[in-house]
């Protein structure tokens, strides 16, 4: 499922019949040979926007996940390796962020920052890193006590060498499982923010298109909802469900908690 979303996003220029903003028909056209899912309120092809929207979804998922990975990995590794006061301070910071009411804060910050895709990614990244940091830290603590890390250090291996040569490869599968979850969350949060009008409504994204469809005065008339609203809802469900399935499959294998 996820592969299909990724492939659609990557191949959007070749798969989509039209550019996403191109006005290629009259507004609210029913599905036809020229527009398989009809047209939206401006007369743009809905199928093309669905396909191009997957690219936005991918960008958000990848960017937000990368941000979460960078911050979570840095905090987790430093806390795990340095220990002591650094560990204590960083973990209290993690506790604080984890204790915050995420959804109201996301909405609050998104309102303050204003609607843009970059802001959405930043806001999502800002709140999703602590879980990753915790997992990385606990794994780092566990790995640090193992012999091969001590031996590497004994032979003069620096911190960066230890991280690169021993910790990251060992952490890889755990992080991968965590990142898939984060990606799914990022996609749903972006869609949620867009749906609430706090994302970038000018972006061609599934959440923004859902919001646009729902606020159209004609969405409740005829069967417009069937070809404008439903495809975007299904696409979102498809992407988030795909991420969740992979996460569920990977976690028991790589998360040490499951082994206990």
């Amino acid at each position: 499922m996820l592969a299909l979303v990724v492939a659609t996003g990557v191949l959007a220029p070749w798969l989509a019949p039209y550019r996403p903003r191109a006005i290629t028909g009259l507004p609210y056209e029913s599905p036809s040979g020229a527009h398989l899912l009809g047209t939206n309120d401006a007369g743009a092809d809905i199928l093309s926007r669905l396909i191009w929207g997957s690219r936005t979804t991918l960008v958000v998922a990848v960017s937000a996940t990368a941000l979460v990975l960078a911050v979570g990995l840095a905090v987790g590794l430093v806390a795990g390796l340095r220990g002591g006061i650094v560990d204590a301070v960083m973990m209290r910071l993690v506790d604080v962020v984890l204790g915050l009411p995420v959804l109201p804060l996301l909405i609050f910050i998104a309102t303050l920052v204003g609607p843009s895709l970059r802001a959405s990614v930043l806001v999502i990244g800002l709140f999703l890193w602590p879980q990753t940091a915790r997992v990385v830290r606990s794994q780092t603590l566990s790995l640090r006590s193992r012999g091969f890390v001590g031996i590497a250090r004994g032979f003069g291996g620096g911190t960066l060498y230890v991280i690169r040569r021993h910790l990251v490869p060992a952490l890889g599968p755990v992080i991968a499982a965590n990142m898939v979850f984060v990606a799914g969350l990022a996609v749903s949060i972006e869609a949620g923010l867009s749906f609430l009008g706090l994302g970038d409504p000018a972006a061609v994204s599934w959440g923004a298109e859902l919001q646009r469809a729902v606020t159209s005065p004609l969405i409740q008339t005829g069967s417009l909802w069937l070809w404008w609203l439903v495809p975007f809802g299904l696409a979102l469900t498809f992407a988030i469900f795909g991420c969740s399935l992979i996460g569920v499959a990977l976690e028991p294998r790589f998360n040490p908690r499951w082994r206990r």
Partner: protein
Amino acid sequence: MMDRRTFLKAMGGAAGALVLGSACNPGRPATVGGRPTVRVKSWGDLGSPSPFIYVAGPGYWRMSLLFDTLTWPDSTGEQLPWLASSYHRSDDGLVWSVQLRDVKWADGMPLTSRDVAFTYDYYTSRIFTPLLTGVPRKGIDVRVTGDRSVEFRLQSPDATFLQQTLGTMPIAPEHVFSKIADPQAVFDKRVFMGSGAYRLASKDVNADTESYVARDDYYLGRPYVRRIEMVGVPNDDELAGLRAGVLDGGASAAEGVRNEVLAPFRDNPEFGLISAPAGFAFPLFFNMTRGGALADLRFRQACLHAIDRNDMVGRLLTGNGEAGSPGWLPPSNPYYTSDGVREYPFDRTEAARLLDEGGYRRLGSGDRVNPDGSPLHFRLHLPDVVPLALAELVVDSLGAVGISIDLQRIDLVHVYGLKVAPNYDLIIQSYPGPAGIGPNADPDQLRAVFHSNPPSQTHKATGYSNPEVDRLIDAQLATYDIDERKKLVAQIQQIVAQDLPVAMLYYTDFFYAFRRSVFDQWYYTPGGFSTGLSDVYNKQPYITGRKVGVQVRD
């Protein structure tokens, strides 16, 4: 013991009562003595209905239920004597004499000419937010000439004075407000005590409701509409609220409406439907201070040639609007002219020719570059009240001639920030804004857009300055003769259409549907009420029960 016949009668009666009961909306307020209760949409917490703390147009009209002005328009657009019994302008146009009716405030104190002079001084000696739309111009000498007579002495003739001062300035009681130093900090019942036809009966911000009850001792007679209830509706969808029976009248969205949405009201005799042309306008502003292409007349002209404004009206509004005039005013404005006003018909070839002539070369990709080789690329800001579909049509149209645009959505407050800074390339603004006037309002609205020294920068055509336009705008303001004024306003339209600092895209028609059985005297006021408010909520028909005059319906 009940016999069979009695039993059947009783059951029949009960069934009839049930049917009748279910046919009536249980939430429908009773009509008392033929005087209806009218339910309209609530605008949330848009300030309070007091002369110095209301907010924008919707706030003004609620306030106007409690506080009267010296004159007020009816469906003809004429200013009727209201608190005034008569008014007269001197031959030189500098002195307006007003005689007052015998009126009492809601607390029983008499309303005198001293209240009028006090109100003017109170307004002009303080600084209010721009959202207080009815603040009169400064520089008028208001003289009390008797208990019920007052003179306004102007420094220069002012063609807007009648509507925008006498017909807009709510008269406030001196005996109340003279004890209030900061009227923007007081919200108790004192500041809601006016001379108007209604009193504030309830206001619940959380429930988004408020109600106004008629004053039976009102000086023009007992108001026809007994009670006005304002009710919040989900998503501000008034027409849905009307269909659901929550409201008795509902307006179409300001950004325009398609026929499909109006069909249920057109086809149903239960409802009436009125409309007015050009209730709202959508101009595209170029930030000429940025220089380069934006300051290049050929570029701006090419943009307008590239946009099919008639197609926009058909496509987005199913014809419920008008294509924008390059001279700003819509055809429905009495001061509109097309004579000598340059048109920019949809013509991509002409747009391409102008761009080529300006040195904006087209690359193989289809995009153009500036004469210095940099991309011909701009950011288009649009506030959240502007339909995204409109912006996308603009982007598509300009893209077709090689002008690259990216869209940036922002909220309305930020738009004004960008305009004032000025820090933008292109903005599609929605009009009216805080000035609270519509495209059909007095032609002095051109001052806000095209004068080099406008009252505020929020509607200014950024970077535009033409001394001849300044002179003409000042001259039309000082001209009472309508024909003469029309000539001056026509010249302004001709020049700004040639200079094209703003490209008017289209105007949307307003529609108002209402339940005939409750109240059917709705109308759109020609030229608007107050400073030119284009909404349907003129209080005159509620009070009189008629569309014309001040005589109250029995």
